[in-house]
């Protein structure tokens, strides 16, 4: 499989980033949920710090993914009604936006709470805002709201992919999978 996208299939770079980010998002939502439900204590600190490290990893991959997309055009979409193409387009860019907005609101929330972010204990990230209890609440609300938006957009994305694969039978899913002829 070539690194770059062909006219019918994503290359391994785009595919790798797509599936790696999906795996990290599943891990990330799980860590966040566990941490959120734990009582205040060491275990919660540990889970939350892993959540932050994974979040920064997702942010870094999102930067790479956006840069890659800039230089490597996606394969052509199968024929579909204009409104579906538009919704798919908006949904994709909404997902890209969330890959930035979720880590950044989490990062700002950490700074506002005076719990600076470290990436796996290897590097400390700067605080872009000073500690502020009110702003912490604002970014916490935003972070939680955006997670729910993520669930909706990912649900729509998966439903659309399955519809193309099993109802339209246009082979759209193969574009994001290795090894199969479309």
């Amino acid at each position, binding site marked *: 499989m070539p690194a770059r996208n062909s006219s019918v299939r994503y290359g391994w770079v785009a595919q790798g980033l797509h599936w790696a980010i999906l795996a990290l998002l599943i891990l990330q939502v799980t860590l966040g949920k566990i941490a959120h439900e734990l009582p*205040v204590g060491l275990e919660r600190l540990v889970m939350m*710090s892993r959540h932050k490290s994974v979040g920064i990893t997702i942010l870094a991959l999102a930067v790479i993914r956006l840069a890659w997309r800039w230089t490597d055009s996606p394969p052509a979409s199968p024929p579909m009604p204009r409104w579906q193409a538009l919704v798919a387009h908006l949904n994709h860019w909404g997902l890209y936006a969330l890959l930035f907005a979720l880590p950044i609101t989490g990062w700002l929330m950490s700074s506002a709470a*005076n719990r600076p972010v470290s990436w796996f204990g290897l590097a*400390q990230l700067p605080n872009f805002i000073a500690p502020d*209890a009110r702003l912490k609440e604002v970014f916490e609300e935003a972070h939680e709201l955006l997670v729910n938006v993520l669930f909706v957009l990912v649900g729509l994305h998966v439903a659309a992919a399955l519809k193309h694969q099993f109802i339209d039978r246009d082979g759209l899913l193969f574009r994001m999978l290795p090894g199969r002829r479309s």
Partner: protein
Amino acid sequence: MRLGAFALVLALCPAAHAGPRQADQSDGRLEFSAIQAGAKFTGAFTRFRVALDLDPAHPASGRLDVTVEVASIDTQDPERDEILRGPDFFQVEQHPQAVFHAGRFERVGDGWRAPGELTIRGVTRPIPVMFTLAPGAGAPVMKGSASLRRLAFGLGHGEWASTEWVGDEVDIRFELRLQPVG
């Protein structure tokens, strides 16, 4: 001529003894920083008293006394403050104050070293406090630092005794405008 030289020496000596001095939270800040989950954060104590009696001509006698109301700990994170005030850390109900006392001073470069004893949570350990005195607008400015290992004072029991997620070393910094006593 001799008198003139004497006056010049006096004028050039900013640390000339001006009697005992004092400061509290309205005269500056007493801060500390520590590592939590790989990231350095800063907190402060918002109620404390400092008394300094340092005659540069007689540094072997004098005193530096600091009394800190440990319940005033403020890391701008209510959850963390609650844990720090609690039984695993400062145990503020049984040990409401941390106390430092030094009875002599040593010249170190442009500044001073106060070898003294710090008592936290009923545990007393020798620690040196380093500081400089600079003439400020109206009041001399005392600026300095110290560092300690929290576990040596029993700060961190149970799950918090591990240094994997909360570092042992704590750095203290202060900057105070010293007021005349009385």
